[in-house]
Each structure stands twice: as structure tokens, then as C-alpha cells.
């Protein structure tokens, strides 16, 4: 479904992503992991059009969407969350989600119904009427997901939505994504540090470091891979 071909991006000589290829099959949940500064968020920004790649291609269902604007990427069916949550602060939680829902349902009344559905899905109760700036961190993360889901994406890019959540909350979130994936066939690509979530969710894991691919495979394979262990834990001196 999503296909990234030899994507490269450098910032003033510093190579952030180099010759990276990955593919996310339709209906799958995949993870993109790597140590801090590995270039994971840059990959997301390249896929969603927040940044333009120096070279390489991004294909969604075979259509080239390389270098499209973020709103066009969203219209093409890519939903994303931001690592640092970007709530529309002075709007209520519900209004935040309504904005997302307006992509597919042009009328506000319809968008409100859709928003209600997404809010229920993510277990927003009374908070829905609160201004978004009053939310706690876990709730902001949840709102990020709700905003993205409301745009009815075909593939959802989640940038560290579990960070800062308690284990119980993480499990709840994991369960939600599994249900979404199972029931609606939503394809998910997630950047995550919380291995508990990665292991539970993803069938396929891509590991990058310094912008390049160092390993990929099933979660079990990846965590036993020597290169992966080295980049996370450091190399043993001989």
C-alpha cells in the first residue's frame, strides 16, 4: 500500500535519511524504530509532504505522491499524528475532531456525527466538551489520533503516540489500534519507543539508524539482530 523507494534527505550536508526503502502492505501494522535522532520523524515528514525529499519516491497504492503538500497527502489518504501533539488549543476536543471529519463530510452536521463516532472509539467521554488546551498529556496524544482518524485515512502514521502513557493506557491504545485494523482494515505505520506496544502491535518492524536501514523483519527477529542491539546498547569493546 505504502511504498518508499530510496528516499534521501539532508539538511545542510547532514544526511538525515539516506537511501531508505520500505514498504507497508495493505491492512498491516508495521513499525519504524531506531534510536533517538535516527531520522524516523524525518521519514514521516517526507511521506506526508511536510518536507520534500532530495531524491527518492513515495508511492501510495501505486500513485506517486512524492513532494505533494501535506494537505494533498492527507487528501490522498494519509493520516498522521505529530510527535509533539498539535491540538487546536482554543477549540473544544469535539471541534478538533470535527475539523478532521470535515474532509470527507462537507456538512458540519455530518462531520459532528462522524466526530462523535471517533470520540467514542477512543473513549473520550466528558472531555469532549473541554477546550483542547486543558487536556493532560495522554489525552492530547489520544486527541492526535482522533484528529487523524477523523479524516478517514487509508493509512495512519503514528509518531510516538504511546510516549508518556501509563502501561494500562498503552494497552488500551494498542487494543484500539488492533480493533481498528481488524474491523476496518486500516493500515498503520508507527514510530514507537515503547517496545511493549511495538511487540504487541506490529507484524513487521523496520529499524533505522543515522537515516539508513539496518534491519527489518518480525519483531522477534529484529530484537535479536546484532546490529540492532549494537545501535541501541552500544558495541562491546574487543
Amino acid at each position, binding site marked *: 500500500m505504502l511504498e518508499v523507494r530510496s528516499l534521501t534527505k539532508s539538511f545542510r550536508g547532514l544526511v538525515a535519511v539516506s537511501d531508505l526503502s520500505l514498504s507497508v502492505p495493505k491492512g498491516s501494522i508495521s513499525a519504524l524504530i531506531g534510536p533517538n535522532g535516527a531520522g524516523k520523524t524525518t521519514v514521516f515528514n517526507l511521506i*506526508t509532504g*511536510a518536507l520534500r525529499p532530495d531524491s527518492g519516491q513515495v508511492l501510495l497504492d501505486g500513485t506517486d505522491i512524492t513532494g505533494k*503538500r*501535506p*494537505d494533498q497527502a*492527507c*487528501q490522498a489518504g494519509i*493520516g*498522521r499524528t*505529530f510527535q509533539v501533539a*498539535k*491540538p*487546536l*488549543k*482554543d*477549540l*473544544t476536543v469535539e*471541534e478538533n475532531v*470535527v*475539523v*478532521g471529519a*470535515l*474532509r470527507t463530510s*462537507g*456538512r*458540519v452536521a455530518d*462531520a459532528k456525527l462522524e466526530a462523535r463516532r471517533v470520540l467514542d472509539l477512543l473513549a473520550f467521554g466528558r472531555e469532549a466538551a473541554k477546550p483542547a488546551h486543558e487536556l493532560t498529556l495522554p489525552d492530547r496524544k489520544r486527541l492526535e489520533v482522533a*484528529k*487523524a482518524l*477523523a*479524516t478517514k485515512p487509508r493509512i495512519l502514521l503514528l509518531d510516538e503516540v504511546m510516549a508518556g502513557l501509563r502501561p494500562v493506557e498503552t494497552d488500551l491504545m494498542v487494543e484500539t489500534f488492533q480493533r481498528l485494523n481488524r474491523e476496518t482494515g486500516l493500515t498503520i505505520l508507527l514510530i514507537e519507543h515503547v517496545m511493549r506496544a511495538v511487540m504487541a502491535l506490529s507484524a513487521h518492524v523496520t529499524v533505522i539508524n543515522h537515516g539508513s536501514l539496518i534491519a527489518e523483519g518480525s519483531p522477534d527477529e529484529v530484537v535479536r539482530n546484532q546490529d540492532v542491539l549494537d545501535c541501541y546498547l552500544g558495541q562491546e569493546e574487543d
Partner: protein
Amino acid sequence: MRGLFEDVPVRAAWGLIVLLVVLYAAPLMVGSYVLSILILCCYLAVLGQAWNVMMGFAGQLSLGHALYIGLGAYASGALFFHFGLSPWIGLLPALVVSGAMGALIGWLGFRFGIRGVYFALLTIAFAEFVRILFDHWGWIGGSSGMFLPVQNRNIDMTASSIANAFWTLRGPNWIFYYVILTGMVACLAIVRLLMRTKVGYYWLAIREDQEAAEAMGIDVMRYKLLAVIISAMMTAFGGVFYAFYNNTLYPESIFSIDRSIELLLGVIIGGIGTLFGPILGAFALTWLGEGLTITQDRLDIAGLKLLTYGVAMVAIILFRPAGLWPWIRRLLGMAGRPDA
């Protein structure tokens, strides 16, 4: 029209109706002095409402709205002066010209990613640029001004002559009052309806966080341009009114930055990003200004007006930074959406 009163608390709706009845009956009850102040209030409320669309809702700061007043005033004024066209016909080109100018400035600014104060500087630059252009344009009188002929200050109270006065905008002050009051109500209604559609929600999203808005599929450029164009057109309506009410047009005064500032002060006082704030602010500020002028003349203290004005501004910015309306609305117990 469905949605105009949707979600308005009953109390607020009644309050609004009473207020409108009082305002519409005002010419029967007040003298010419008070009427002239009310005209000024409504005029500033229209401009404030227009500016608020851009700044309060779409989050784009303009400090050059005098440009659209001037373009509206000159477009309709010149058509009347040279060809005797009714202001209502002149309104159309006035809206088109102002809207196009807004689109041009917006496009230039947004295309090259100029945001915030830098965009505001661009709006000032354009207002100044057009002012200088008009200063040297003979057809509209250049820097020596354009004067619309004053006719029919007193009219017969027959239906046809009243209709004629409305059509030509040549007549006594109460004619002007009803035009601008209705304009103010229309602008309020238009903006309220817009804010309850996709466009309104998208404007708020862009104001709050442009990147988040883009990620939710909003073509930011398009909706920002729409905000500028609508704002420019509403301002141009105010400009048309100004031309026919004032009858004298000088580029120097109509395009001046003082005018751009004057129209946004009321919104800041009343409450940026609210629907009723611009109206409340315009009325409060105008009456305060008039009251102070009188007091100043009575007591013979030069500068009292400006001093008090300044203190009032500072007080509001310090103690009610969101403006008077959100605060009053809370006092009245009308919570809800911030733009109600």
C-alpha cells in the same frame, strides 16, 4: 438561513432582538448629534467585523485595512462623480476591486510563506503604495481630493423620494443610519453563518495551528485567501458607505494607517475572535471617545481624551486581554463556543 439562530441561548436571542428594536427605533428618539455618533459606531462595527474575519478567525494580521476602505470609497465615489452611478451599482466594482487586491496581497504573502508581523508589514506597504498612487492619479482628483455633490439633505416623506434617497445615498442622516445599521447586522449574520460551515471551522484550525490544519487535509492557502477576500469585501462596503456619508475623499486621510489602526482597536477592546466583540468594541470606544471629547472641552483640559483613552486601552489589555465581550458573556451566564 437555518443555523442563524441555532445554538443561540434564548436569553441572548431576546437580548439581541430588543437591542435591534432599540437601534432601529433610535432615529425617532434621538437628536442629530446622537444619531451621527450611532452612525460612526455602526460604521466601525462593520470594519471591525471585517478585520476580525481575517485576524480573529483565520489568524492573519492585517494592519493595512485602510486600503480596502479607500478602494471601496474611491471605486464607488468615482463612478458616482463621473457617471452618476448609484452607490449600489458602484458597490459591485468596489467589492471586486477590493477582493482582487486582497487576493493579490494574500497570494503574495502566503505563497512566499510570509507570516505574522511580516505579513502585517506587507499589508501596510500595499496601503501606502496605493495611497501614493492615488495621490498622483488625476481622474480621481489626486491629492487635492474628490468631492461628491451634496444633494437632498432634506427630503419629502413620500415613498418615492425616500426610495430615491436610499438608492442614491443622497439624503438626511437617518437614511445613512439605516444603511449602515443594516449593513452591520448583515455582516454579523454573514460571519455567523460562515463560522458554522466548513469554512469557519477551517479558519479556526488554521488560526490555531497551521501545520495541524494541513495534516488534516486543509488547503491552507485557499482558505486563507478566502478569509482575506471576504474581509476585504466587507471592508469595501464600509468604504462605499464612507464615501457617500462623508462626501470628501483624500487619499492621504482615507488610506492612512491611522484608519487601519482605528478599526482594529474596537475589536481588541470588544474581543478578538468573537462575533459580538467588534460591535461591542465599536460602540464602547466611540462613545468613550465622544464623552471624553465633551468632558475635555468642558473642563478645558487639553489631552484629557488621549490620556484616558490610553489608560483605558492599557487597563483592558492588562485585565481583560480577551476583550470585554467574553467577560460580559460570562457575567451574563452565556457560556459556550467562544464565537457565540
